[in-house]
């Protein structure tokens, strides 16, 4: 798939000598949803601020649709929509006017029917003549999305889109994001809600301390880096594990009625067959079996801890 954003050896050192980004290289594919995961202060916002033109990079280069963000800033910025993390809105303005203002900033002729469609899609049409300070937090966030979409961008950056948003609205926002992707928009979102990345992202990039730790398809990452756990339910409770099973590093659960076994699903030999064989030999009777996949959250925590 064609790349829409290419980041090469991007670094940023702020005036106070804080290194926010360190030699980041990342390609973002056209029409994908990519989640940038990382703890607070990891460098996610700095990265998207550089691509959008708000922060000046210290070194490295970024292209959007093969145009350099510094040399061809007019072309690149007109392709990009940005939804910032903070609810940065002028509180006394009216919703419709404010969204139209953003369209003008991007060099587009006024298009009231398009603004009407965007506001309707985001359930804001009823509030078009309301002042922004009369809106709830969730509505303000949708106004920010409406503003970012007002000039019909092909790349949309969402910086923590669901921060401070209730569960219902978060689900609605995920649907909006999926619909946008289906309409041809490439979505780059930063989040520290792992479930958000798991729910909507095609790929995830984990950033910590300004460094890119891993980039992979969400499902592949879970499969390749995640451990699986086999939970075996027994007919009768056991007090201690038989000596024959000690080499498997089993954990006794549920007052001796279950045991769990961690294994690497990508390995050629998982050890499950020999475990079951040995259990049979020790006379343990099995009642049920189930496997559990470790979540993206476990992987994320592990990656960040190692870094």
């Amino acid at each position, binding site marked *: 798939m064609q790349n829409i954003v290419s980041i090469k050896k991007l670094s940023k050192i*702020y*005036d106070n000598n804080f290194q926010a980004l360190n030699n980041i290289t990342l390609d973002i594919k056209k029409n994908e949803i990519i989640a940038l995961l990382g703890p607070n202060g990891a460098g996610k916002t700095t990265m998207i601020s550089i691509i*959008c*033109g*708000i*922060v*000046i990079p210290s070194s490295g280069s970024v292209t959007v649709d093969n145009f350099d963000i510094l040399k061809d*800033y*007019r*072309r*690149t*910025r*007109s392709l*990009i929509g*940005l939804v*910032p993390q*903070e609810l*940065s*809105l*002028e*509180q*006394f*303005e009216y919703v419709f*006017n404010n969204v139209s*203002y*953003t*369209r*003008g*900033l*991007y*060099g*587009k*002729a006024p298009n009231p029917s398009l603004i009407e469609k965007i506001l309707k899609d985001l359930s804001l049409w009823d509030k078009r003549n309301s002042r922004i300070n009369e809106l709830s937090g969730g509505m303000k966030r949708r106004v920010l999305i409406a*503003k970012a979409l007002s000039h019909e961008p092909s790349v949309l950056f969402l910086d923590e889109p669901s921060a401070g948003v209730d569960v219902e609205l978060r689900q609605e926002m995920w649907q909006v994001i999926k619909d946008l992707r289906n309409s041809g928009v490439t979505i780059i979102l930063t989040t520290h809600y792992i479930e958000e990345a798991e729910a909507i992202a095609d790929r995830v990039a984990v950033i910590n301390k300004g460094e890119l730790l891993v980039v992979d398809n969400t499902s592949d990452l879970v499969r390749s880096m995640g451990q699986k756990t086999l939970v075996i339910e027994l007919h009768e409770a056991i007090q201690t594990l038989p000596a024959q099973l000690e080499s498997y590093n089993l954990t006794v659960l549920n007052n001796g009625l279950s045991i769990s076994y961690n294994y690497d699903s990508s390995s050629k030999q998982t050890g499950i067959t020999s475990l079951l064989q040995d259990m049979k030999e020790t006379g343990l009777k099995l009642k049920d079996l189930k496997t559990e996949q470790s979540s993206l959250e476990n992987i994320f925590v592990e990656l960040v801890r190692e870094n």
Partner: protein
Amino acid sequence: MNFYAIRAIYLHEMDRMRRTIGQSILSPVISTSLYFIVFGSVIGSMIPELDGVSYGSFIVPGLLMLTLLTQSISNSAFGIFFPKFTGSIYEVLAAPVSSLEIIIGFVGASATKSLIVGIIILLTASFFVELKIQYPLLMLFLLILTCLTFSLFGFLIGLLSNNFEQLQVVPLIIITPLVFLGGSLYTIEMLPEFWQKVSYFNPVVYLINGMRWSFYGASDINIFISVVSLVGFLVACIVGVAIVISKGYGVKN
């Protein structure tokens, strides 16, 4: 040139004036009217003519300049500072807009607002004193040039300010005293010789006298020196804003 962006910024800023009509229009008109009532009609009736015009008429150019300078500075300083304060500056920075286009939008709107206020003040003055403008085209030229120059200066202040206090320091502590001591209510000749010499170091003296010359054909300073000093200050402001914007100081990290 991104004309739609310039138009968007300009109309957005003009809309702010509409929303704050009391602060933008009424406040300067009321305070200037009070000057005319107190200094022009009440005290002025007891003061002999200066440069051949009544005291009430004499102070019109000075009071007009006082308003233009303070309004131009505060309009544009607030115009750029407010989005910095609320954080909404991000969308201007992220838009495909050049620094020049941003300046034209913000400064153009600020200068327009000041021009509107200036014209309203002239109309208000005509209710209190006899108003004669000997060189109306020159007066209009100086009016527009002053609005643009000091809007640019205000834009620079807004860019560099990090809080509301810094935003107010230059207009309140520097500009207002310079205008009052710049011959807005008297001629330089009325001062003792030492203070006359000191006054020539006050740049506002040249602006007020230039405006006064366009009204009455007489002033303490040669009109060409006044116009050249105003243009010089405009160039200094353009260079200052260009340097600050190019370095991203105050808005970009």
